């Protein structure tokens, strides 16, 4: 067991994790020997330029795509491709709400799949609908919802499974700044109560600073671990007022510098 100074155990361990897409001549190295660990209840942000392999890392953690080299341990158990564990919840980068299901049926999907009795399912769905502020839209189809509402449905659909580990891939990437801040508030509220272990992928440094305990900066493709920053801001945080503090600005510019080099490398390449 990986014991750390503050006593919390490591729930996720990445060991020299490597991913090379394709085979033969057309090989694309996407992730190159990335190692880090995430402790119980920790909120980690994964940040880096587009194409540096952030989604790839999350997909490997969720067991959706095979690992080329290295390993991922979740609670000391190796992740094996194609064998999902219910304790891991995944919010995808793309909008993956089922368009043919109403809000209620989207959120209740996981319970339905696990044959939870209807009465219990409905009660749980109602609770999450309430929490996400989707009241009145229970029977609406996703096509009639705004982007922010759809993302809330996605989030609640994942949370209803009560995952202990939450993987989130730029969940708010497509939202405008205001809606994004609303979502940050909601997410922090939930996390403060339930203390999931979170790996949160983003492009947005402000978002990473608002939400996380630790920011992992990846280099441009192929993704390597570049630097790790602790985010010491007090909790509970207020998504808006936090941004106005000098500590926020100081850490922002420090990470921005590190990140800036990588963004320049990406744009120089392509």
């Amino acid at each position, binding site marked *: 067991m990986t014991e750390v100074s503050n006593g919390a155990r490591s729930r996720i361990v990445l060991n020299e994790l490597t991913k090379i897409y394709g085979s033969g001549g057309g090989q694309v190295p996407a992730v190159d020997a990335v190692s880090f660990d995430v402790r119980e209840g920790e909120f980690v942000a994964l940040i880096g330029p587009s194409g540096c392999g952030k989604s790839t890392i999350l997909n490997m953690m*969720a067991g*959706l795509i095979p690992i080329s080299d290295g390993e991922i341990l979740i609670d000391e158990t190796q992740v094996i491709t194609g064998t*999902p564990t*219910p304790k*891991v*919840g*995944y919010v*995808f980068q*793309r909008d*993956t709400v*089922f*368009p*043919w*299901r109403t809000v209620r049926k989207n959120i209740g*999907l*996981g319970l*339905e*799949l*696990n044959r939870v009795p209807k009465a219990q399912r409905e009660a749980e769905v109602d609770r999450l609908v309430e929490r996400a502020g989707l009241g009145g839209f229970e029977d609406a*189809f*996703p*096509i*009639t919802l705004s982007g922010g509402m759809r993302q809330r449905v996605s989030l609640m*659909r994942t949370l209803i*499974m009560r995952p202990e580990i939450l993987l989130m891939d730029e969940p708010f990437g497509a939202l405008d700044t205001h809606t994004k801040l609303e979502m940050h508030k909601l997410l922090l509220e939930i996390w403060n109560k339930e203390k999931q272990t979170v790996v949160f992928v983003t492009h947005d440094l402000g978002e990473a600073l608002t939400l996380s305990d630790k920011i992992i900066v990846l280099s441009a493709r192929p993704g390597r671990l570049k630097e790790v920053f602790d985010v010491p801001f007090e909790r509970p945080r207020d998504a808006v007022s936090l941004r106005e503090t000098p500590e926020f600005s100081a850490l922002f510019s420090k990470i921005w510098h590190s990140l800036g080099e990588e963004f320049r490398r990406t744009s120089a390449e392509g």
Partner: protein
Amino acid sequence: MLSENGWVNFWRVLLLVLILVVWQWGDVVNNWLVADFEKSWRKALTIQILEPFFISKPNMIWARFLELGCFTDSKGAWITSQEGGFAGCLAGNTNNLWAATVATLRNTFWGFLVGVGSGVVVGLILGRSDFLAKVFEPFIVAFNSLPRIALVPLIVLMFGLGDASKIMTAWVIVFFIVFFSTFEGARSVDRDHINVARLMGASDWQVTWTVVIPSTLAWVFAVLTPALSFSLIGVIIGEFIGAQIGLGKIIIEAEATLETADMMVALFVLMIVGVGLALMIRRLQAYLLRWQSQFSERA
């Protein structure tokens, strides 16, 4: 004075009246031209298409409609005043308008149902199994490149003059329409949708039921309208080639006996049936696909 909709309807009615008038009395002009200028250049102007022999006349068609529909007898007297009445008239003519319409509709419905059902099942199976798709591909391509109509005589030979051959004809047409659409749909199921279900612990069966089938059905529902009209086409062709009853049978018989009025009656009934079916299926489709943009209230 009139709203835009009002004007649209005004012109529609006017156009209909115009068509009926020309249809009813257009041959008068025709006859006059031919009679007076038999050998002159004006003969070229005579419009053969207004010839009642080919297109009949509205009043004659109406009379035949009443007779074929067992509303009146052959002399135009109301059937209710006759011996045997309505029921007797129906029994006296096995291919009366009612029986023919019911037979054609019934076979259209079954052809549609069997065609859609089998198309969906085969499309789903081949769409989700690359191996089977590869095995069957040349057979499907070969069979599909055969004009389906060419099979109808064989079908009538095999299944006789009854309902089965009509349903089979509709089936071979409808099946492929639905099959190809389902196949495409089953192949383009969003991988991430499947992943979402898998990550929540869905079994293969559950993935099929909660993701593959619902997202494929969208493709199926989208072709319900053509499937239904092609089912009707299939049945009519089946009836042309060999039948004892049906609207197609009335048409082909009218051709043989040079009774254009009868043919027109059958064509009009077909038109009404076609419009009715299309309206019905469109409502069904709008309901089933209410979660898609073009059918939702918002769009």
